[in-house]
């Protein structure tokens, strides 16, 4: 029997992997992918609670998150391409002009 705790464990694992990916990877593409993992961890969480409480609000909210994630990916990739055209690189540690 798969209980809600299993879903929550998967969700927490995805969140952890995504967070570590965002913090540790240098390639911005990978960072964006890690952000998708974090969002999906949230989605899993929302849907699990939706099923558990027998309410659709969580599922609707998850669809919103997916829509926003698509928009976010589009804008993020657009910025990424512009960055690549200007700097010839997509390494996050090489983009550090906004400092003192």
């Amino acid at each position: 029997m798969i209980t809600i705790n299993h879903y929550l464990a998967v969700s927490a694992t995805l969140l952890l992997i995504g967070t570590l990916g965002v913090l540790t990877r240098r390639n911005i593409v990978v960072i964006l992918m890690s952000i998708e993992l974090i969002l999906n961890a949230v989605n899993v969480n929302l849907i699990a609670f939706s099923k558990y409480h027998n309410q659709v609000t969580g599922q609707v909210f998850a669809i919103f998150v997916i829509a926003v994630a698509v928009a976010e990916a589009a804008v993020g990739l657009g910025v990424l391409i512009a960055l690549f055209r200007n700097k010839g690189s997509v390494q996050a540690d090489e983009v550090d002009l906004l400092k003192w």
Partner: protein
Amino acid sequence: MVNLIWLIPLIPLGGAAVLLLLGRMLPKSLIKVVAPGTIFAAFLLSLGAVMESGGKPHEVVLYEWLPKVDWGFLLDPLSSVMILIITGIGFLIHVYATGYMDHEGGYYRFFGYLNLFVFFMLILVLANNYVLLFAGWEGVGLASYLLIGFYFNKKSAGDAAKKAFLFNRVGDAGFILGMFCVAALTHGSLAFRDLHGLTAGPLLTAAAALLFLGATGKSAQLPLFVWLPDAMEGPTPVSALIHAATMVTAGVYMVARSSAIYSLAPEVSAAISCIGATTAIMAATIAMVQTDIKRVLAYSTVSQLGFMFMAAGVGAYWVAVFHLMTHAFFKALLFLGAGSVIHGLHGEQDMLKMGGLRSEMPITFWTMAIAALAIAGVPGMAGFFSKDEILFYAYLNFKSVFAVGLITAALTAFYMWRLMFLTFFGEKRTLVHAHESPLVMTAPLIVLALGCGGCSYYAAQLERWLEPVLHSNHSPDIGLKHVLMAASVFAAFTGILLARYFHASTGPLGPLTKLAQHKWYLDDIYDFVFVRGLGMRGGEYLGSFDRRILDGGINGAGLVTRFVSRASIWADTWIVDGLVRIAGFSAMFASLPARIVQTGFVQSYALVIVAAIAAALGLFWVK
């Protein structure tokens, strides 16, 4: 016609303007007509105006020049005599000059200046106040300067012009101060009509003395006479017109014009007689040893001017004017005759190289002989009456001046006839073939010679004519007059006879000869005191004062400024800038902790966010 007297000076001014502005383009033959023509027109107008006025004073005021001072002309008996002399003799000299200057360059310039001179001279004598008189006074000085330096290629001519100008400035300073005194006395009017009714006092005495200082400059009296002999560097007609007949008598005219002042200042009048007498005898002795024909005449002019001041000083103003008039005739004639001789000998002026010219230049000889008799004081000639009157009034008022005057009269006869004997008698000492001058030059000589003989007979008329203007203390002592006359005639003939035998002598004055030859060392004294003393040595002192004290002060101020500015720079760099830097640095140091947070590295921000969330969750958990 008497209302047109303002036109009299204006006509020569027009001539001068035309000649100086357009003269370069005019043909010589036209200049020969224009230049004497304007003077002749002025002469005719003067004659008409004088006849019409009949001796009544007449003033024409053109406009108010300065407050209370008019641009006004005054025709009275005194100025009548003066304008007739100036325009009449001026015309003759102009005519003569057309011949004399024929071969010279700058023809139009010469006549332009000469006309300009006549204009200013007429302004001087027609002025109805001191200010306008002074304007003419300065103007004739300018014309004199320009004409003395006419041969401007010659250094000596330029030097002589400058000398004349500078010596006149000394006198003019006195004149201006005198005018201030007169202005104070007449409450600012300075008009001659306001001179009557003044009262004696220190201010009036000062005015008299200072005005006379002006006269000593213009009329070449001690101590300022040394410029006049040097002025002979100018062309001979200039010497005749300006430095003998008219301009140099301006001082005498001015003293006569101011007789109302001088009659109230007896001390100054006495000083004038003494200065006149001293100048007369001093200049006469110098004239005795000169060898340059024009210089003899120049010193003679100085001496005769001394006679005029003798007369003015003893209160016989009309006699001074009378002598001025006769002197204008015979001295103009002498100068023109000398010019004729120089012209005939192609520029030779040294009398020792002349001699025997009597037969070659008969007209010049006879006319000059008449003038020489006149100046010597031979009876029947112009100078006889005027000089006699001077000696008479001197005898009445001032015996020692009379004695000096009598001796000077004898010396005058000597030096003038020395000139005549050296020039016209004896062996001819030059190889140059002399020629008699052309008619334009000899005709004025003849007219002047007639004047020399003629004008003397009008002494009594002149005295009566001048009576309304110049107070005359007529003395009816006819017997005394005849005795004095005999004395002066005796002096004259003694002088002429001595000249006959000693004219070739190199030391006619005995022990005094050397003194006279060196012009009584006056030039040397001026040179020593003013040129070398004040000029050069004083210049050195002033120079070292300038270098040491003035420059020292300036350099010191510079050093102080430099020091102050150094200090200011130091303060600026270390204190003002330091404060600004400290403010900047302190802001920088204060910002250091905040700054290191902002790495620009996105993932470190993300780490902070994650850490913060973890911490918040941790706190939440602990609670």
